[in-house]
Each structure stands twice: as structure tokens, then as C-alpha cells.
């Protein structure tokens, strides 16, 4: 059962990575990058159970937080052209 889950995650990863490589617009790539982070969390979880040692499941939390920070930085860069932008400092 966990093998089926792993294969499903790998196929999804393949689709996402090919979209990131082919992706005509930048937003395809941003979305693909974010999805890769999510799929990495899923792969981490399912591999733990596949090996019979799911102790490192909580590392998925770290991955989730990192994914959020990366995507926020990318989107802030797009909105303001500068990731150190501060609304109150400019006004």
C-alpha cells in the first residue's frame, strides 16, 4: 500500500518537475516550486512508513514552514521588486 502511495507521489513529482522545466510563464514555475515542496513533505511521510520507521514525520513541519517562506519571498519580490520592502518605512 505504501509502495502504491510512493509511486503516486513520484508520478505527481514528475508532472510538477516537467511543468517547472517546460513552464512558459514564471507563475507556472512558482506554482511548480511550491508544489514540489508539498510533494517533498508527502514523500518524506510515506517513505518513513515504507521503511517502517516513521520517527522523522515531524520534520515535515519544518518543510512546510520553509515552503511558506520561499513562496512569500518570491511573491513579495514580484509585487514590489524588492524583498526587503517595508510599507511603513516608505510612507
Amino acid at each position, binding site marked *: 500500500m505504501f509502495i502504491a502511495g*510512493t509511486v503516486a507521489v*513520484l508520478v505527481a*513529482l514528475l508532472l510538477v518537475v516537467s511543468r517547472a522545466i517546460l*513552464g512558459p510563464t*514564471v507563475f507556472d514555475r512558482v506554482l511548480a516550486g511550491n508544489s514540489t515542496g508539498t510533494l517533498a513533505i508527502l514523500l518524506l511521510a510515506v*517513505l518513513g512508513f515504507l521503511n517502517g520507521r516513521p520517527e522523522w514525520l515531524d520534520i515535515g513541519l519544518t518543510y512546510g514552514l520553509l515552503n511558506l517562506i520561499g513562496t512569500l519571498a518570491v511573491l513579495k519580490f514580484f509585487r514590489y*521588486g524588492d*524583498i526587503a520592502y517595508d510599507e511603513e518605512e516608505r510612507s
Partner: protein
Amino acid sequence: MTISLIQMALLTMLAAVTVAIIRQRNLFGVVILAGIYSFLMASVMILIDAVDVAMTEASVGAGISTVVLLATIALTGSKEYPSVRRSLVPLFVAAVTGGALIWGTFPLPRFGVQESAIHMHVAPEYLQHSKDHKMPPNVVTAVLGDFRGYDTLGETTVIFTAGIGVMLLLRGRRRRLKENGKSAGKGTA
């Protein structure tokens, strides 16, 4: 068997992403692809049972590097112009260096062999003591936080000091830029 098949699939995707990074001319796409590369690499490291290294790879490669590279792009511009010079010499140097590195791995013991020298020195003692003295169940944590506690303290101090230094430098530059901008604004008004 299953594990090595998964590893093959991940490494194939890793190679494809690497080729895409080299061929990509839009630097913003390169940053995103580098983040994807880090997440794939972290998954490979989980497969070879190095979960702590995987966490470092994900936090440094996908987290901090993305932010730092984006900040750099904001300063330089996001388009790479194709090089006009021939790249034969750099290619030769890269091939020789890569070949030397691969050649250097031949005398190393095979991955995961228990009788190799590095597993016979202090590792059995660490394993035994971490069991006896009620240390953290994760042996890596026990080694880093307990057996080599002073070492870890020194490393963290160095990194913390470097971080403070960089922040102070950047902060001073930003304040100076801001003051210059203000005085320029007054001059025109």
C-alpha cells in the same frame, strides 16, 4: 530494491532539473529551479537515511538560498545574456575537476559497509554510551549536543557572530542610502 528504484527516479529528475538550470536564461526561473533541486536532493538524502542532512539541505537550499538569490536578482536584473566567448577551456577544466573528484572516490569504502575504518574508531563507543547514559534517542543529536557539545557551541557562536556582522553591515548601508535620498529630495524641493 524498491528504495533503489525510488532513488533512480529521483536522481533522474535531479539530472533533468540540472540541465534545465544550465539552459535557462531567465535568472528568476533559475532560482525557482534551484529550490526544486534542493527539495529533490533532500528527498534523496532521506532515502539514504541522512534525515538531519536532508533537513539542512531543505532549509539552506530551498529556504535561505531562494531568499538570498532573489535579493541578489533585485539588485542585478533577471536576464542572463548568452556568452560571446568560447567555453571550451572552462568545459575542459570542469571535466578534469569532475574526473579527479570521481577518481578520488575509488579508494573510499563502499557506502553502508559496517567494517570500514570510520565505523570502527569512536562510533561503537558513542552508540554504546548514548544507550547507557539515557541520552537523546537520536544518536546524531546525542553526538552533536552531548559528546561534542563544546564543538557545537563553538560552531554556533561563529555562525551567530557572522550573522550579526552581516546584518550590521547591511543595516548601516541602508540607513546611509535613506539619508542620502532624503537630503537629495530636500535639495530639489
